[in-house]
């Protein structure tokens, strides 16, 4: 049962199977069952995981013999939360699409993407990592381009080319690193023990950083994100915001920090300033957005800016906060985008000026929405608080002013999120509003699960922090000089 490869195999097999299923009802049930199966198969890893810094459940095969490139996967405390997040969110995302009539191809792409994402989080060889990195990009491009709305082709082309551009720089850096070792290899262990010169580290840093910064996205590389989130179908937005951008942060932690520690240390103040600017800038833009999805897209830039800042703060608190907040952010954006989607289905619009007063006909939605929102703005006893507290603590230890300006997210987040809630739920119904039906069935189920974890992780954050603590401490010990 503790065969990691099976986690990659199930989604791929499921994708092949789903390709040929035309009938929507059957397709979504198969997709749900296979994604639940993947989730079930990841439970043994959670149980069998020993919370120390070691790499566990490792598997490796020689992939390209002549180049000594391996297919090498393994699990440690930093990747486990993300693997659980991925496998936990995919069933929710599939379930959230039960109100639509997607054909099997849609779910096939989702499953395929899951495999790519898992490979990214599990890879122990930079070659495998890169394959997963690009593999995840292709399905989401088709999901967004085929089922999106509006100016989707142009927007998606930009998204694809922009993120691909970043990846190319990373590829160049990987090829460079490949040639540096005595024994040519892209194994994580050998890359980490390369002892690059300072100059080499600087170049490698920027190449990697560009790839990750575009994916995360960090200001000012973010402009693909609001358009893409807005035009993508709800499922695509959830995949992008909920899981895909974590690839970038994970990449920072897994590859950039250990490989180019000196460069990270010497550039961290620049990156932190970018992150903090991004937090304030995106929050301010979110104030006045009329399109609900675009509002959340900008808020997401602010949130991940804080996460990235925590990583670069180079503190246990900051990195632990980043790991926890990645999970939290995944939960909350999936919840919020789902709420936007189900309101859009009911009202055929996404404009805040056409919404309002939904709390009266939809009391259940009003409750779960509020809890998820409070999680997003970091109210104590919800998951977001611990994450933000740790991130800001990390920033504070790096520099007081970073924490002060980063902490503005506390105020600004409340401003735009409460405006969002007020414009959606409070006030009067629009005079020409259609009758609104409260959430039920799959909608209630998805949102209840998210609500439960929002509170559970707020009260018991050790569930995540305990998994990653040893690995994070080890990471910092390994790269501290």
């Amino acid at each position: 049962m503790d065969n990691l490869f099976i986690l990659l195999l199930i989604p791929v097999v499921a994708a092949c199977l789903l390709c040929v299923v035309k009938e929507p009802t059957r397709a979504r049930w198969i997709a749900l069952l296979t994604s639940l199966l993947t989730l079930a198969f990841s439970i043994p890893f959670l149980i069998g995981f020993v919370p120390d810094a070691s790499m566990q459940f490792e598997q490796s095969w020689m992939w390209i013999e002549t180049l000594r490139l391996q297919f090498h996967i393994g699990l440690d405390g930093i990747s486990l939360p993300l693997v659980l997040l991925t496998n936990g969110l995919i069933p929710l995302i599939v379930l959230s699409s039960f109100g639509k009539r997607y054909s099997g191809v849609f779910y096939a792409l989702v499953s395929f993407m899951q495999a790519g994402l898992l490979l990214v989080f599990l890879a122990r060889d930079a070659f495998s990592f890169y394959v997963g990195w690009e593999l995840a990009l292709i399905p989401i491009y088709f999901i967004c381009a085929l089922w999106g709305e509006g100016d989707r082709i142009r927007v998606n082309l930009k998204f694809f080319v922009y993120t691909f551009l970043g990846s190319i720089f990373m590829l160049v850096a990987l090829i460079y690193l490949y040639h540096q070792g005595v024994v040519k290899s892209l194994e994580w262990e050998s890359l980490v023990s390369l002892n690059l010169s300072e100059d080499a580290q600087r170049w490698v840093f920027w190449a990697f950083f560009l790839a990750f910064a575009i994916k995360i996205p960090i200001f000012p590389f973010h402009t693909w994100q609001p358009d893409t989130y807005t035009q993508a179908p709800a499922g695509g937005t959830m995949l992008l915001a909920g899981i895909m951008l974590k690839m970038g942060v994970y990449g920072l932690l897994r590859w950039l920090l250990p490989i180019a520690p000196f460069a990270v240390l010497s550039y961290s103040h620049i990156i932190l300033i970018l992150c903090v600017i991004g937090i304030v800038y995106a929050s301010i833009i979110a104030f006045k957005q009329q399109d609900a999805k675009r509002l959340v897209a900008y808020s997401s830039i602010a949130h991940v800016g804080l996460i990235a800042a925590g990583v670069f703060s180079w503190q246990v608190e900051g990195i632990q906060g980043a790991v926890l907040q990645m999970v939290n952010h995944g939960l909350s954006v999936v919840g919020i985008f789902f709420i936007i989607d189900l309101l859009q289905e009911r009202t055929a619009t996404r404009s805040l000026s056409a919404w309002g007063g939904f709390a009266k006909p939809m009391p259940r939605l009003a409750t779960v929405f509020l809890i998820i929102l409070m999680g997003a703005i970091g109210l104590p006893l919800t998951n977001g608080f611990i994450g933000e507290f740790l991130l800001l603590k990390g920033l504070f230890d790096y520099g007081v002013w970073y924490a002060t300006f980063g902490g503005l997210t506390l105020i600004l987040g409340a401003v735009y999120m409460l405006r969002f809630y007020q414009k959606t739920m409070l006030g009067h119904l629009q005079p020409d509003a259609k009758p609104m039906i409260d959430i039920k069935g799959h909608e209630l189920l998805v949102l209840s699960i998210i609500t439960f974890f929002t509170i559970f992780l707020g009260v018991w954050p050790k569930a995540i922090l305990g998994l990653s603590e040893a690995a994070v401490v080890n990471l910092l010990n390994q790269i501290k000089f």
Partner: protein
Amino acid sequence: MSALIWLIPLIPLLGFIINGLTRNSVPKIVSGIVGSLAVLASFVLSTLAYLEVSAARDAGSVASFTVHVFDWFSVGSLRIALSFLLDPLSAIMLLIITGVGFLIHLYSCAYMAHDEGFGKFFAYLNLFIFFMTILVLGSNYLVMFIGWEGVGLCSYLLIGFWFKNSSYASAAKKAFIMNRIGDLGFLLALFFILEAFGSLEYAEVFAAASGMSVGAPVIVIITLLLFVAATGKSAQIPLFTWLPDAMAGPTPVSALIHAATMVTAGVYLVVRSNVLFLLAPLSMEIMAVVGVVTAFVAAFIALTQNDIKKVLAYSTVSQLGYMFLGLGVGAFTGAFFHVLTHAFFKALLFLGAGSVIHAVQDEQDMRKMGGLRKALPITFTTMLIGTIAISGIPPFAGFFSKDEILAHTFQHQPVFWVIGLITALFTAFYMFRLLFLTFFGKFRGTAEQQSHVHESPWLMTVPLIILAILSVVGGFINVPEALGGHHALQAFLAPVLEMGEVNHTVLELSHMAEYVLMGVSVLGALMMAVFAYTKYAKNVDVADDKKQESLLYRLSYSKLYVDELYATVIVRPLGKLSVFFFKYVDKMGIDGFVNGVGDFFIGSGKGIRQLQSGHVGFYIMMMVISVVAILLYGIFHS
């Protein structure tokens, strides 16, 4: 008992969950009973806890019990436990919260009886009690922060309880955001405390702090940040404008949250951190100035307000200002004493106002009331007691607490005392104005309203009576020595307040001087009452208030234009900035650059592809020219 104090917050939480889940499926009476019983249970437990602390104090111990519930989280060297601290300070706060809270729950059963959101209302109230008890019970700053933010959420929910009215919803949002500004200060203070002391546990922080020198910069920063937090929660300048707007919530909420408990959390925070504040004279001085200015400004605004709840709201801001003045001049006991008495009489006044509003069918404008004395005898009597108490007329509760603050202020800085005295006179004036406008003269509302005027049901009057009794006798728990008392409250709180090495300010005034100070303020208050009587009790026509267009009147009536100032200086520029960032910086600037890179390649592709004309002759020509060029290069280069 002290091992079970975790039940005090837990029971209201259970009440919240039960009420929240069943709010639409059970009759209102069940929701009311569940909600009230939950708080009553907490009150009983709090009383037991108080008795235990009291017994321990009598036995001469410091009476401080810490209960470790569970380890919340730990990262690196940072370990945060969810643990509770029962000591004299938290015991008294618990009594106020659950006691006044229970009375207000009872009152709400009748007040909200006709509201369709009855179950939801009780769920929110229980949630509030949960967070408020967490706030005072926490044994470290982070647990206090849970409660601190949690009560902010409840305040948001309850102010916006009638959320269909979008101005109410906006008031709720404003309260939350202004509170959050303070919360950022709190959070930064936490980081500084962690950095300076390595822990957030009160015991460890205060023990470590007592070794530091007076005026150490880090202590000054910490205390100033904590004070910023307190200004948000306790509605002090510059963050006070949310509290008057918060009157949009149902009246019991105004009584519980925006008068008796939540807004005093700032005072609790400062009293709790007195060890730190005593080490930072600068912060104390700033606090005193902010307190006295807030007290004066709010009282000044309250003079001319016509909405009965707005008057009380500004009065609350003003009284909170008093408390911070007291804290600033070192009268920690006095300030906390005022928290206690204020909780009684201000809750009483709000509930009384609620009873009046209930009687005249949700009319809040005092110009449309009058002459209600006969129809509402119990309400009138109890509100009269509350008014006398807040005006500082002996032997009612407000006199003792206000006197203690003023006496300390006089010793510290006579100028503050003068401003404080003027504020006290204002207080007496606007409170008696409120009383006379409401209960004296002739009824000025519609005939339809008049026919409905009735005394409130017993569920509403009983809490009024109990609070009135407390407002009368509440002051006797800390009678000053000048009046033959022995500062019982001060003695009870001694372990909390005397942890620091630095001595607290001791009142060194002679008894004679104290008598003079008391005499001046009491006499002034009485004169103001008489003045208000001549001006408003007989005068049926109150519309002439409007004719007084003097500058001062307009300033007071329009609340010093603070809201307008904030709108012009902060809110609107931020909105414009948002649009500017979105349209020009993001869309045109950054995205323009990104798209520009793409356009550059598309454009250069368009240009270069012109070479691919498709004419074979042209290709061959290019080939020949290139061959010749290479040949020539080869020849001349070598």
